[in-house]
């Protein structure tokens, strides 16, 4: 292999530093003994214990996870259906309008989505809280699922669906037994994307939440305004760990499947 030039090494180092140095600092200081965030006073895990005992933070985390699970699941179902409609029925009335509207939240500023949803919930007389945040997150994340699933549907060989119908499967059975298993990886990654987005969201949650329903990002944000505590660092580190684990598992699985598949194919053609 060629040795990398000094310029390349520097560029890569700076790039990674730019991306990950803040996160690294955060993780390091979450193990800080001192109550002062910027002064290192030795290694300790006490802030993790503190987090565990902080009822407010734990409640917020629990709300966030429930909103995330529910919103991601509903958004995945709706987003997959939208993707199906967009790829399979190419000629229905108002298709362009529909696809434009599905994708709108992708480019719309969060503030505007949040504000418009707030106006809607107020006008409709909903009590703001857990359910309104969930609904807002469904709206926000559905389009991401649609994008992911649609690209898989487009690259899928349509004739396998025809083959299933040809062999006597009704359209519903065809979808459940053939289409869904084939697009499952995309559906799963759509779900993970939706879950992560919901986990991350601060702006829309702020607009649509009510008393008693505070998500973790909201909680962190409000606490940070009173000063960063090592507790926040610890919570954030946990969040980073969860997300990183998810991403690593997903990519390892994909990679391994790809390798296995290539090996199988070679074996098949070597016969």
């Amino acid at each position: 292999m060629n040795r990398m030039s000094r310029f390349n090494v520097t560029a890569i180092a700076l790039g990674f530093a730019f991306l990950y140095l803040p996160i690294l600092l955060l993780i390091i200081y979450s193990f800080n003994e001192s109550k002062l965030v910027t002064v290192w006073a030795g290694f300790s895990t006490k802030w993790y214990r503190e987090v565990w005992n902080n009822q407010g933070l734990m409640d917020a985390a629990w709300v966030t996870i429930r909103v995330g699970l529910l919103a991601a699941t509903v958004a995945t179902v709706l987003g997959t259906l939208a993707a199906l409609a967009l790829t399979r029925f190419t000629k229905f009335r108002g298709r362009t309008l529909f696809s434009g509207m599905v994708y709108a939240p992708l480019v719309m500023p969060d503030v505007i989505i949040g504000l418009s949803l707030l106006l809607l919930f107020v006008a409709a007389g909903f009590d703001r809280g857990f359910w309104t945040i969930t609904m807002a997150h469904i709206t926000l994340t559905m389009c991401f699922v649609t994008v992911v699933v649609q690209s898989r549907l487009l690259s899928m060989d349509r004739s396998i669906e025809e083959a299933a119908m040809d062999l006597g499967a009704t359209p519903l059975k065809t979808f459940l037994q053939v289409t869904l298993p084939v697009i499952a990886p995309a559906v799963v990654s759509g779900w993970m994307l939706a879950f992560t987005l919901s986990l991350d969201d601060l702006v829309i949650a702020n607009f649509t939440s009510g008393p008693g329903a505070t998500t973790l990002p909201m909680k962190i944000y409000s606490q940070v305004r009173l000063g960063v505590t090592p507790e926040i660092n610890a919570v954030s580190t946990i969040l980073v760990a969860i997300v990183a684990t998810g991403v690593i598992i997903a990519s390892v699985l994909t990679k391994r499947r790809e390798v296995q598949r290539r090996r199988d194919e070679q074996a098949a053609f070597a016969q």
Partner: protein
Amino acid sequence: MKSLGSIRRSFAPWNDSSAKPYISFKNVTKRFGDFTAVDDLSLDIYNREFFALLGASGCGKSTLLRMLAGFETPTSGQIILDGQDLSQTPPYRRPVNMMFQSYALFPHMTVEKNIGFGLKQDGMPKDQIAYRVAQMLKLVKLEKFASRKPHQLSGGQRQRVALARSLAKQPKVLLLDEPLGALDKKLREETQFELMDLQQDLGLTFVVVTHDQEEAMTMADRIAVMSAGKVVQVATPAEIYEAPNSRFVADFIGDVNIFDGNVVSSEGGKTQIAVSEDLTIVAEQNGSGPASGAAAFAIRPEKVRIAREAPANPGFNAVKGEIWDIGYLGDMTIYIVKLASGQTVRASRLNASRELENPIGYDEEVWVSFDDNAGVVLKD
């Protein structure tokens, strides 16, 4: 056991006016927007027939097959199978199965599950499915691969799985869309004969779509040559080759020499066509030739003789030319002869003896000749 030949020779329901067609296309038209894929087409296919739809890509043959399978609905016209109008029947209730060009195997299922898929949809008990799947695996000689996934198979094996899957439900009609298109030449030739045997053994009706004329000629009882959404000719392979009904068919199937001219006389069972100053063609009359006016004479290269010596009656079915090109293929040699009129004639000669000495060479003057009944007269 009777040989395939003896069964085949006696099989000709299309000549029997009392035989009822099994599949009928009646004035079927299919339009996609402005494009007419199938144009007012009528066609009859008989039970146990091996029928081929042959044509260049875009001629409508695949659309016709897909309408039979139920994936496309005719814009107008009727498709009748075994006395039943299929227009309102969705694909999953039709007694036909299709083998797809891409094989369309379910990538997430094993070979066994793929083959058993159709049976499972019918609600067949598990043990019966297992029995039938085992039977099918044996039929296509894939017993050892039952628990593999499609991506663990070679192209030829995938083709067999697709075939087994489409046969598992014992359909009345099997549709095959370019079944051998993805196989290499040697495998393709083997599989052609296997498909023919299989069709004969199972007593099914096969409708195959292909753009490969050799494939159609080898396998089919009858061929429908299609062009621009219409059937140009439906006949046995031999009739299509020896008695094409139009210039298009003559040109599409195999190699052909076509002489354009005018009918001089048409009497006594012979048609005389003036082609050029030094050539008048005398041909036996046939159904498709005109009695007067412009006409074309089509003759296959293997029916054209070339010789150094002048034939008995020069000027009539014989003309002088010069060797322009020679293609030596081992078993036969193809000569391209340029006539005084500028037209080239292709003649092929079987190398029945080892003519190593004094072969006909480049730039040599030769006589091109043929018999009265060697070609067909066509409308211009």
